[in-house]
């Protein structure tokens, strides 16, 4: 009776258990069978790691010697990365217990929970990043109102007040001319500010005219030539599809100008299999995506990704050192129907 319960415990435990005799497995439970059927499980290699003969970095002891991983080795819980049949890598935790002289027990458990924890941390950082971006936007806007518009209005006020001291009509007409010009400039500033916040073209005319206006303005303010090749005619898409496309374009173009060291950019907009596809390509210096994400930068990229995924689309970034970078955004055109 006693033994059969222990048998059952061994068989039903959710951790994958392997009973090892020497170097061969003599018994494995259900979870272990499942594991072996959905992951590539090189048992010998895993045992080597478990016994501390190698580590994640080095397959044999000679190579490993006293490397950092080995220094804090613990047989009760060691990290393990297994490849699933689709080629993706997932994290596991293993433990290795000596039962008697020959027999040992290897147990392997998935680390999904810790992954999720990582995601929660990532999300918090993203929220912080977005809040920070909002705050910066407000700062810029406030500065613009105070240093830009308020100043212009103030100097116009002074110019107008001076008119009453003006004796000669010739003088007066010159001054009025100047005031006229300054009003035109002020009006331009207000309109530009409104446009930078959110272009009316995006709401009134659609995506393509809005993009053309934005890129024209970016060329004037940065000196970079941006070739825009729309491969579809101008038509309306769902509001969020248009907004996200516009914002991703804006951010990607700014990223390229800021980091890639280029004088030329290429933007295309096309329709493929019920998806709206935007690409932003530069032939600049490129970057290592892995590194950027590791060093807790690249939240801008992550934010764009999240926005794309929020309506069932996705964003990919392909970059190669000294080759350039391509950002591709795919959004389902009929996402409302899908929902």
């Amino acid at each position, binding site marked *: 009776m006693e033994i059969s319960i222990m048998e059952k415990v061994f068989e039903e435990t959710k951790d994958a258990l392997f009973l090892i005799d020497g170097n061969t497995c003599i018994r494995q439970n259900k979870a272990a069978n499942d594991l072996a059927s959905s992951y590539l499980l090189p048992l010998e290699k895993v045992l080597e790691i478990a016994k501390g003969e190698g580590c994640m970095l080095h397959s044999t002891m000679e190579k490993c010697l006293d490397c950092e991983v080995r220094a804090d080795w613990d047989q009760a819980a060691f990290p393990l990365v297994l490849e699933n049949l689709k080629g993706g890598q997932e994290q596991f935790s293993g433990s290795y217990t000596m039962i008697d002289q020959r027999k040992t027990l290897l147990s392997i458990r998935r680390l999904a929970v810790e992954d999720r924890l990582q995601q929660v941390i990532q999300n918090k950082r993203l929220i912080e990043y977005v809040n920070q971006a909002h705050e910066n936007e407000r700062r810029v806007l406030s500065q613009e109102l105070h*240093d*830009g518009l308020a*100043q212009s209005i103030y100097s116009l006020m002074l110019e107008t007040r001076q008119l009453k001291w003006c004796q000669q009509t010739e003088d007066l007409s010159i001054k009025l001319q100047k005031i*006229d*010009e300054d009003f*035109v*400039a002020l009006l*331009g*500033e207000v309109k*530009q500010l409104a446009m930078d916040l959110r272009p009316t073209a995006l709401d009134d005319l659609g995506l393509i005219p809005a993009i053309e206006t934005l890129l024209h303005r970016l*060329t*004037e*303010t*940065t*000196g*970079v*030539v941006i070739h825009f090749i729309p491969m579809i005619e101008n038509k309306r898409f769902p509001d969020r599809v248009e907004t996200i496309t516009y914002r991703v374009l804006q951010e990607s173009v*700014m990223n390229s*100008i*800021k*980091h890639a060291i280029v*004088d030329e950019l290429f933007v295309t907009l096309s329709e493929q299999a019920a998806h709206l596809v935007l690409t932003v390509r530069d032939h600049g210096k490129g970057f290592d995506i892995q590194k950027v994400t590791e060093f807790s930068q690249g939240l801008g990229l992550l934010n764009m990704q999240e926005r794309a995924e929020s309506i069932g689309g996705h964003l990919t970034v392909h970059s190669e050192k000294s080759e350039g970078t391509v950002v591709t955004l795919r959004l389902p055109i009929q996402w409302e129907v899908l929902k």
Partner: protein
Amino acid sequence: MTDQIQRRIEQIKEELHVDFVALALSTINEVTKVRVIRWNYVAGNTNQHYQRIRLQVGKGIGGIVWRTGRAYQATELQKQPEKLIELPITRLEKLETVAAFPSLENGEVKGVLLIGYRQKTIITEDFLTVAKDKTNELVVYL
């Protein structure tokens, strides 16, 4: 007139021993009355991209000098991507240190002169005085 200014700009580049000189001027469209400021004259440029830039009053080197009527300088620019966006001419011409001065007539800004170095350079007070004088002398052409 045009050639005169261009020759003067080139002279200033030699006299001040700088790598780059540019002069921004404004033109007003007769019909729309819209003011457009551009880098109209340059010397020591490595490409023609400066022609694409349209300066905005209050933004960038030219724009800030235009609004305030005061000199402006900045250095170690190539290390600061944010600055390079703000000051596009420094990105296009790979300038490390820049200074800009207003050309004033009766307190009104008529033009902005920019000088730049491609190596990090310390700008002295004496240099500033000389450069300012030269900028003000330009008024006669404007």
